[in-house]
């Protein structure tokens, strides 16, 4: 007779508590709504506008992280310099503070009468209650994620590939774009997805920096406060679906 493995049995029972706690809320919502309601939510102009605002702002924040974070990540992966470690740690601080605190920090640094904000406003970027405010707040809380992901991606690319490419006549830039970047591609792509999802998920910093224009996360709160729990269900189900798609896409990328 085969012995039951007590430990795995006990641990599975214990573990299923947290599995249940995490998955039950997601399962329940799909029993409380239906595809028609979700479809209707998609026809709601206010929802559509908020979605558009959020996704565009998140995309711009992610794009900024990509444009400036990728070179930074490469330098961090390839060069050693004094206090590099401290610098990397400090750049992760936005992930370790309350999101409302992140909002205060962003507003304080970038509002239109601050020294930086004044310069920004000259090129038309004002953060208070503006689309740009959403972008900057999202960037602050999500860029560290992108930088970590890209950096670890670059670290995994053997430098020898770059050495060979250069002896073959490719300059440093050409080598980066034809060899290094393609080899770190997967990490960059999953970095982009996670960063975008983190930007979309933000509430606290947006409440401080730019409650208007209405982003989707804030619209959920508004609907909930104005019309109660049931009014928020279709939009919640819609956003949950998007979240599930994001997570499964990431899983697919890491599996390949």
């Amino acid at each position, binding site marked *: 007779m085969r012995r039951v493995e007590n430990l795995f049995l006990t641990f599975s029972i214990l573990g299923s508590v947290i599995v249940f706690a995490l998955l039950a809320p997601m399962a329940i919502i799909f029993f409380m709504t239906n595809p028609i309601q979700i479809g209707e939510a998609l026809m709601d102009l206010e929802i559509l506008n908020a979605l558009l605002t959020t996704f565009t702002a998140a995309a711009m924040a992610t794009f900024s992280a990509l444009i400036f974070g990728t070179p930074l990540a490469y330098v961090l992966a390839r060069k050693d310099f004094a206090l590099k470690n401290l610098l990397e740690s400090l750049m992760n601080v936005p992930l370790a503070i309350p999101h409302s605190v992140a909002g205060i920090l962003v507003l304080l640094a970038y509002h239109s009468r601050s020294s930086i904000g004044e310069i920004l406003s000259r090129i038309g970027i004002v953060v208070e209650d503006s689309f740009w405010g959403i972008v900057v707040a999202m960037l602050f809380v999500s860029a560290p994620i992108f930088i970590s992901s890209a950096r670890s991606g670059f670290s995994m690319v053997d430098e*020898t590939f770059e050495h060979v490419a250069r*002896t073959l006549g490719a300059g440093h830039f050409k080598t980066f774009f034809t060899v290094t970047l393609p080899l770190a591609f997967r990490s960059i792509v999953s970095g982009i997805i996670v960063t975008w999802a983190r930007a979309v998920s933000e509430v606290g910093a947006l409440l401080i920096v730019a409650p208007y224009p209405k982003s989707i996360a804030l619209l959920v709160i508004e609907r909930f406060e104005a019309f109660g729990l049931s009014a928020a269900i279709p939009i919640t189900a819609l956003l949950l679906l998007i979240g599930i798609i994001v997570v499964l896409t990431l899983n697919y990328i890491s599996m390949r």
Partner: protein
Amino acid sequence: MKTVSSPLLVLKSVSKSWREFQIKDVNLEVRRGEYFVVMGPTGAGKTLLLQLIAGIHYPDSGKIILDDVDVTYLPPERRSIGYVPQNYALFPHMLVKDNIGYGLKIRGYSKNKVEEEVQEISVKLGINHLLERMVSTLSGGEQQRVALARALIIKPKILLLDEPLSALDPETREEIREYIKEIRKILKFTAIHVTHDFVEAVDLGDRMAVMFNGEILQVGEPIEIINNPRNELIASFTGAKNLFKGKVIARRGELAEIDLGGVRIYAATRKLGEVMVAIRPENIVILLEKARISARNILEGIIEEISEKPPYISLKVDAGLPFTVYLTRNALEDLNLTVGKRVYLAFKASAISVF
């Protein structure tokens, strides 16, 4: 005139320290068309030396002259050097043909031209059946060939090979060694080959340098270094291996008659052409008279030197070529062997390594 006869590569007191590795005041000349082997143990700084020549690192001091141009601080892409690192570093995100064509594509050659040249070199190097393959599906030996093609297609001034055989199993190693000899005949490149294996140095090298702890201790033809190692360290590394270069001149079934430059021996091998022959000093028997013996090789010689090689006694015997023989003290006394005595060396055809 001067340009043609000047050395292709000159290192002038090059020093560099990088991580735990060091190069100390290295002076070196590599001649045009030469296959130059740098031999030394792991950690001697051989890879760093290649990387300085390739421009991957810059020296702390000293000069590197390539083809009469000071390239000391030139970036790698402006040196025209072929570099085959130890792990080959084939680009895993490209097909074999795109790996080979990379250097030409980067130079802005048209797609057709690249394809044409890739085809041409692949035929020459016997790898055109691999062109459409993914890099990850190649065996070690195939990777090595592709890496060679990728480096050679740009017609580099010099080819740098970093322990090209060390990652391969013994059989493939021998195969690739022959392969390098073959393609050298076709493409006539100059090369620096770095290794810790003395056999490779003797087999492939026109000249060689022995490197220890970042310093070049001796430069010369392999046979010169075997016969006159400058110090004990070099001698211990080259070893007393009775290693000779020769040529198969006749065959009798499984048996090959090999000319080692005057001395002829028989060995059990199917090889043809130029070969390397090694006979371990423990496997040579000394006879005082010719006897009916199964050993195929009986050479007459004179004992030149008797020395201690604990736990053995080592004899140097001149039998047309310098042979080293290990005996026990016991045998030495029994046979009454002394310097100047005429003896017969016997060794079996099957106890000879041919490669």
